[in-house]
C-alpha cells in the first residue's frame, strides 16, 4: 500500500512536470511561429491592402473624394481586424489565445491546405495523416527496441568473439540518420533491383480488399522501417552491450554463477533487472530522436504522414496547420514520456520505496 502511494505520488509529480513543460514549450512555439507578433502586422497589412483595392476599384465609389475613401478603408479594415481578432495586441492576449485553443486541441480551420476529403478543418487534415505516421514509427521503434536488447544481450554473452567485434566495429554506422540509409536502400532495392516500391503508403490505385491493402502496406513499410532500424540499431546495441557487460562483472553475478544458476536465469534476474531503468531512459531518447527525424524520413519515402503534412504547411505558411501539427507532436511526445515514466516507476525500486529522488 505504501509503495503504491509512493508510485502514485511520483507519477502525479511527473505528470505535472511534463504538463507544465508542454505548456511552456507550446507557448514558445506560438511565439516563434508568429515571429513574436510580427506575422500579425503582415496579416493586417494584407487585409488593409485587400480592403483598399476593393474600395478604390469599386465603380460605385467613383466621384467620392480620396480623403473620404481613405476613411472608409480605415473603417472597414478595423472591422475586419476585429472580426479576425487582430485588433488586440499579440502580447499577451492573442498569444495566450493561440496557446489555449491549441492546447485544448480546438485546431481551427486551415488557411491553405485541405484534407483528402476536401475538409478545411485542421483536426480532419491531421487525423487523416496521424495513422500513417503512427503505424510506421510504432513498428520501427518496437522492432528497434527488441532487436537492440536481444543483440546486446547476445553480444554481452559472447564478449570478444568475432560477432561482438564486428558489431562494435559497425557502431559508427549509427552516426548517419535513418533517412540517409533510406536513400541508399531506395537506390539498391527500388532503383537497381526494382523489387520494392520507391515510396508511398500503398500501391496506386489502392487495393480494394483489406488483406491486399495490408499486404501492400507491409511491402511499402519494409524500406522505411529498415532505414530507421539501421540508423539507430548499431549504436544502441553497442551502448547496451557495454552496459550489460559492466553489470555482468558485478560480484553478485559471480556469486549466482558460482551457485550454478542457468545463464538465462542470471541474465533475466541479475543483469536485465538492475539495468532496466537505464534502458528505458535510453529508449526515451531513441523515441525522441526518431520523432525528430520523421519529417525528413517521410519526405524521402513519400510517406503521407504528419511530417510531410507539416513541411507542406510550413511551405504555405499555413499557421493553424503548423501549430496543430506541433501541438500533436507535443502531446505524442509528452504521452510517450509519461508512459515511460510509468514503466520506470514500476521497474525502479527506488521509486517504490519512495526513497531518494530519481
Amino acid at each position, binding site marked *: 500500500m505504501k509503495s503504491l502511494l509512493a508510485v502514485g505520488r511520483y507519477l502525479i509529480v511527473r505528470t505535472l512536470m511534463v504538463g507544465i513543460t508542454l505548456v511552456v*514549450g507550446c507557448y514558445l512555439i506560438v511565439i516563434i511561429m508568429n515571429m513574436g507578433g510580427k506575422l500579425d502586422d503582415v496579416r493586417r497589412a494584407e487585409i488593409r491592402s485587400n480592403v483598399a483595392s476593393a474600395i478604390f476599384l469599386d465603380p460605385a465609389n467613383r466621384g467620392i473624394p480620396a480623403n473620404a475613401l481613405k476613411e472608409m478603408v480605415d473603417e472597414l479594415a478595423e472591422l475586419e481586424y476585429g472580426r479576425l481578432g487582430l485588433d488586440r495586441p499579440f502580447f499577451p492576449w492573442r498569444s495566450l489565445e493561440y496557446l489555449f485553443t491549441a492546447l485544448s486541441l480546438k485546431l481551427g480551420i486551415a488557411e491553405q491546405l485541405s484534407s483528402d476529403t476536401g475538409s478545411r478543418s485542421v483536426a480532419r487534415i491531421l487525423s487523416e495523416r496521424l495513422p500513417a505516421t503512427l503505424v510506421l514509427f510504432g513498428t520501427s521503434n518496437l522492432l528497434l527496441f527488441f532487436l537492440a536488447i536481444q543483440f546486446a544481450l547476445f553480444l554481452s554473452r559472447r564478449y570478444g568473439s568475432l560477432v561482438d567485434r564486428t558489431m562494435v566495429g559497425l*557502431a559508427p554506422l549509427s552516426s548517419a540518420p535513418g533517412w540517409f540509409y533510406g536513400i541508399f536502400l531506395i*537506390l539498391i532495392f527500388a532503383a537497381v533491383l526494382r523489387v520494392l516500391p520507391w515510396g508511398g503508403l500503398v500501391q496506386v490505385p489502392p487495393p480494394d480488399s483489406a488483406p491486399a491493402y495490408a499486404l501492400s502496406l507491409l511491402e511499402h513499410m519494409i524500406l522505411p522501417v529498415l532505414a530507421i532500424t539501421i540508423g539507430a540499431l548499431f549504436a544502441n546495441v553497442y551502448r547496451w552491450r557495454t552496459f550489460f557487460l559492466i553489470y555482468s562483472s558485478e560480484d553478485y553475478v559471480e556469486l549466482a554463477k558460482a551457485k550454478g544458476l542457468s545463464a538465462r536465469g542470471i541474465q533475466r534476474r541479475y543483469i536485465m533487472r538492475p539495468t532496466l531503468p537505464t534502458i528505458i531512459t535510453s529508449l526515451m531518447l531513441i523515441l525522441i530522436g526518431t520523432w525528430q527525424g520523421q519529417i525528413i524520413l517521410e519526405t524521402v519515402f513519400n510517406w503521407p504522414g504528419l511530417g510531410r503534412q507539416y513541411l507542406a504547411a510550413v511551405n504555405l505558411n499555413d499557421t493553424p496547420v503548423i501549430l496543430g501539427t506541433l501541438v500533436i507532436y*507535443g502531446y505524442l511526445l509528452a504521452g510517450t514520456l509519461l508512459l515511460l515514466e510509468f514503466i520506470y516507476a514500476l521497474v525502479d525500486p527506488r521509486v517504490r520505496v519512495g526513497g531518494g529522488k530519481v
Partner: protein
Amino acid sequence: MSTLLRNLRELRRYPSAILGLTIIGLLIVLSIYAVIAIPYSEAIRLWRGGPGVWDELPRNASPAWFDLFTGKSLSRTIVVDSRTEGARTREPLGDGNVRVRLSLPLDFPYDTFPTEMSLFSVATYETKRTKLTASWVKPDGTRVPLASDRGIRSSDTYYISLDNQLRDRLPQMAAPEVALFGDVDASSPKGEWKTRPGKYELVLEADMPEAYTFESKLVVYGSVYGIAGTDNQRRDITVALLWGAPLALLFGLLAALGANTATFVLAGVGTWFGGFMDSAFQRLTQLTLLLPLLPILIMVGQLYGRSIWLILAVVILLNVFSGAYLTYRAMFLQAKEAPYIEAARAYGARHRRMIFRYLLPRIVPVLLPTFVLVVPQFVFLEASLAVLGLGDPILPTWGKLIYDARAADALYKGYYYWVLEPAILLMVTGFGFALVGFALDRIFNPRLRTM
C-alpha cells in the same frame, strides 16, 4: 592536462581511431584545397550558374572514370572554336559581300554517342541578318546538310540536337547527335546505331559585307565529364563536393563546440550552486527534449531566413540544454564530492575559481568523446535541412546536391552518381568522427560514461 595528452597518445593503439583521424585529416586537406582553389565568391558565382557559366559542359554527365568499369571509351565533350582551330576562306561575291567559309574539324574516337550538339556563333553584323548554311562531313566523305539559310543575328545558338527538320531527314528519324556520329549496325537485327570513330568536319558558310567577321564554336557534348560528373543544369558537381567539405566541417564543429561547451559550463555552474539554479536548468533540459528541433528549424528557415549562420545559431541555442546536460550533471555531482574540492572550499576559494579551476577541468576528458561524437549529428542535421529544401540559398553543400538530385528524380532516371557522391562523402565524414569518438570513449573511463 598531462593525463589528457597521455590519453590522447593512447589513441595510436586503436587502428579504428587512426583510420578516423586519417579521414578527418583528409577532409581538412580537402577543405583547405577547396577554399584556395575556388575562392568563396567564385564558388557562389559558379553554383548560381546562369548564361555563359556552364555552357560548354554536358547535362547529366557521369564521372569520366566510368570508363574503367564499362570497358568502353565514353564520349567526352569536344569543343571546336573557329578562332583557334580549323580553316577559313573568304570568297568575294562581287556585290561588296563576301562568303565566309569556316571548316571545323573534329576527331571523334569514342564508343558512345554524344548527348547533345550546339553551335554558338558570333557575327559582328548589326543592321541586317546574315544567312548561315551548315553541313556535316562524315569520315567517309558523305555530306549531310544541316541548316540552310538560317537567319542569324549578332549572336546565335543553333541547337543541332533539337533541329526537328533535320531529324525528319535523317535515317530512322534518329536523334541528330546519333545519326551524325554513327551508322545503323548492319549485324544487328533491330537496326541499332553504332558510333563510327574518325575525323568529322562541320562546314559553315555565311554571306556578309566585306568588313564584317563571323566566328563559330561547335560544342559536341559528351556523356561523361570530370571527376564527379555534372547535374541537370550542366554544373560541375566537383564544385559542390569540394565546397561541401569546409561547410560541413565548419557547421559540425562550430555547432558541436558551441552547444557542448555551453552545456558543459552550465552543467558545472548548475551543479556547483545547486538548489534553484540546478532545478531550473533541469526543467530547461526537459523542455528542450520536448521541443521538436527539426520542425522548429524548418519554421525558422521558412519565416526568418535560411542563412547557414542563422541556422547554426538556432541549432546551438536549442542544443544547450540537451540530453548531454544530464550526463555532465551526473559527473559533476560526483566530482563535487572529491576531497580536493573540499580542501579548496576549506581554504575559502571563490566560486568562480572553484568552478573554472577545479570542477570543470576534472571532467574535460569526458567532454572530448562526446564532442567528437556529436559532430556527425550536426553535419547530418545541416544536410537534413538542405535535403528538405531549406539549405542556405547560395552555398553549395552536400545536402543541397542530394536535394537537387531528388528534385530531378536522379535515382529514377539512373543518375546514381549524383546522389552517391555527396552521400558517400557525408557518410565518410560521419564515420571518421564516429570512429575517433568511439575510440576516445573507450580510452576515457568507459564505466563512468555508460552509467
